[in-house]
């Protein structure tokens, strides 16, 4: 065990820090769930890409830095430390890309990854369907082979970023009459194809953060299949693994929130201590953010030694999502009467991010597999308890 950074890692951190401090937008960008915000974030991603910073873990030839997981963690720490913008293309870079790297052909990688790194192509995911949420294997949308194309029909829902994104990846039933996780294929397609209708869905904050997507005889070339026909489930599970696993929520994000919460506490110290639960929650927030960070470095170390991510993915999901709710609920109670104010309200100046963060934190225990599903997975796969 060696819990010190190498000189090289320290140098890497220094590089990232100086560039970010010089280049991070001084004003926070508008939400990427608005049209102008999406454009602004896309520009920012392009700026990052010039440095290979948009996808540091990718090989250089694909637009990355060939960074290892520790460098990735360092990058994330610096990124959150300066409060840089949220990553508008994370569906692509953090969820799809690892899968593409593992299952994509050389042509497919060359075709999609570089444009993803620069966010010339931004990506949305198409997992859920009205009848298939937590129960993903209930997917009914079809992709039927017809000559060199697949013809897509059906409907997807809860597709984040889909309102403004360029491309979609998702699971479709390619074997007619197949059931559950058999006969599914992993398909990639541009969202401007004829026959595709995107219906925005307004979120709690009123913005169209996700969308419903309707497919009406959409023709997609067979070359857009990732892996072989019928291999979709296995590939998607890998993606879901990444999603619940290391990449989706880097610890730095929660360390930043915990530190901001501490600052909020100090700024309101006298009031806060009328409710002793606040001080306790602020301290717990630091401890849990720290624990999540340590656990992630441990996982990274194991992966570096060739291990695979197992049920940690599920324990991670539960831990960070509940921590995120705790921290934002605590901030809400510190803010009191100011907590309800929308970002545009004059009196919300300086604290507007907390309400947005609170609303978003409520999605944590729900998306990417509800925490109830995660607990089932832990109980059955990790603890070996009998299925119902």
């Amino acid at each position, binding site marked *: 065990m060696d819990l010190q950074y190498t000189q090289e890692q320290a140098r890497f951190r220094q590089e990232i820090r100086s560039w970010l401090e010089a280049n991070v937008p001084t004003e926070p960008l508008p939400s990427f769930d608005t049209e102008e915000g999406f454009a602004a974030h896309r520009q920012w991603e392009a700026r990052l890409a010039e440095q290979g910073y948009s996808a540091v873990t990718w090989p250089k030839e694909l637009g990355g830095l060939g960074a290892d997981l520790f460098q990735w963690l360092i990058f994330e720490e610096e990124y959150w430390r300066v409060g840089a913008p949220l990553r508008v293309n994370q569906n692509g870079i953090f969820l799809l890309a690892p899968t593409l790297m593992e299952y994509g052909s050389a042509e497919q990688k060359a075709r999609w990854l570089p444009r993803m790194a620069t966010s010339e192509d931004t990506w949305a995911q198409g997992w859920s369907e009205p009848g298939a*949420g937590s129960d993903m294997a209930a997917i009914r949308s079809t992709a039927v082979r017809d000559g060199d194309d697949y013809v897509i029909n059906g409907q997807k829902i809860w597709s984040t970023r889909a309102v403004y994104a360029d491309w979609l990846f998702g699971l479709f039933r390619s074997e007619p009459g197949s059931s559950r996780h058999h006969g599914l294929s992993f398909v990639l397609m541009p969202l401007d194809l004829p026959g595709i209708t995107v219906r925005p869905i307004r979120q*709690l904050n009123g913005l169209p953060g996700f969308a419903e997507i309707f497919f009406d005889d959409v023709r997609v070339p067979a070359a857009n299949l990732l892996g072989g026909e019928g291999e979709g489930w296995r590939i998607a599970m890998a993606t879901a693994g990444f999603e619940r696993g290391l990449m989706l929520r880097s610890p730095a994000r929660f360390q930043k929130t915990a530190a901001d919460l501490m600052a909020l506490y100090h700024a309101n110290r006298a009031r806060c201590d*009328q409710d002793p639960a*606040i001080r306790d929650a602020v301290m717990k927030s630091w401890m849990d953010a720290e624990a999540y960070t340590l656990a992630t470095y441990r996982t990274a170390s194991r992966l570096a030694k060739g291990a695979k991510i197992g049920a940690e993915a599920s324990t991670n999901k539960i831990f960070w999502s509940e921590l995120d709710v705790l921290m934002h609920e605590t901030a809400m109670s510190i803010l009191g009467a100011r*907590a309800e104010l929308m970002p*545009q309200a004059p009196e919300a100046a300086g604290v507007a991010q907390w309400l947005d963060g609170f609303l978003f934190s409520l999605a944590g225990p729900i998306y990417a597999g509800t925490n*109830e599903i995660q607990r089932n997975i832990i109980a059955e796969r990790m603890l070996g308890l009998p299925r119902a």
Partner: protein
Amino acid sequence: MDFTFSDQQVQFRDAVRRFLVVEAAPELLREYWETESGRSEEMRRKVTSQGLTSLSIPEEFGGMGLGDLDWVLLLQEVGYHGIPDSLSDAAYLGVGLLAGLPDGNAYKARWLERMVEGRARLAISHPLNPLVHDAGIADLILLWHEDEIHAATPEQVELCLNASIDQSRRLYKLAWTPSEDTLVCGREQGQALWAEAVNRAGVSIAAQLLGLAQRMLDLGIDYSAQRKQFGKPVGSFQAVKHHLADVAVKIEFATPVVHRAAYALEHGDHRLDAFVSHARLAAAEAALLAARKSIQVHGAMGYTWEADLQMFMKRAWALESFWGDRIFHKGRVAEAVFAPGAQLGPAQTF
């Protein structure tokens, strides 16, 4: 000793419920949200014709002279149906302040009578609320100043609108200068009236939070009973059942605490502050848990604007800090229970 409501109180509550089920359906509330004032003239006429605006106005002024115990049941319905704060602020809190003024006070009769006729919107400014609800659309703003009561019209003050996550709320930052012309009532009487107003607001909000908790629970039950996953209704999974059962337990035990606070307010009790703040905390705990659990059993649908749940969650979040936030109310309970020699054990409740 009798911890139940009279048949008359229950029947009146039921009548108001029937009225609101029809007149305050979620679709309508959504419409009001989108309007600039956030209010509906038509709704207001109906509410007035139901006599809801003159419930606590003394009979000599043409009202029904109802008390806090009558109100508390109605306010649970007001919360359940997500009625904007204007009604309770004006008809319950505002009227309470006006009715408390000494007879002959220039404002008393005039504004009470206007309330009866439904020709008065009241807003109230108090240091517990950094922003004033409805100040921009009120006919009269009752203003706190060093425990004096002042009054002004929107034209006489400087207003700046602040948007709330609860779009039924119209919050204004307010600047004004107290003067002889604005003075309604001096400190001596004002002090007691304002103290009572804070506790009346506490009962009002606690009761509404109870109603909101029940509404969010009901929405969670309905959704989880019809929504299917893995071939079964979501509500048949034990985890979902226990989420919702926990909410039911919280509501069950918050309710008598709120009713006791209303009783203490109506009959006077030296522990009133602690009882009211306890009610606020218990009802808020139920409502916040209901929001967390109901959105969880709703899944992604609960995170949308389409699902009615969002309107009730947002009301609960906003109300929790209205007329004193959790910090304030915990502080008031702490003052009472940690006081040296506080009487806390068995046989001390009533």
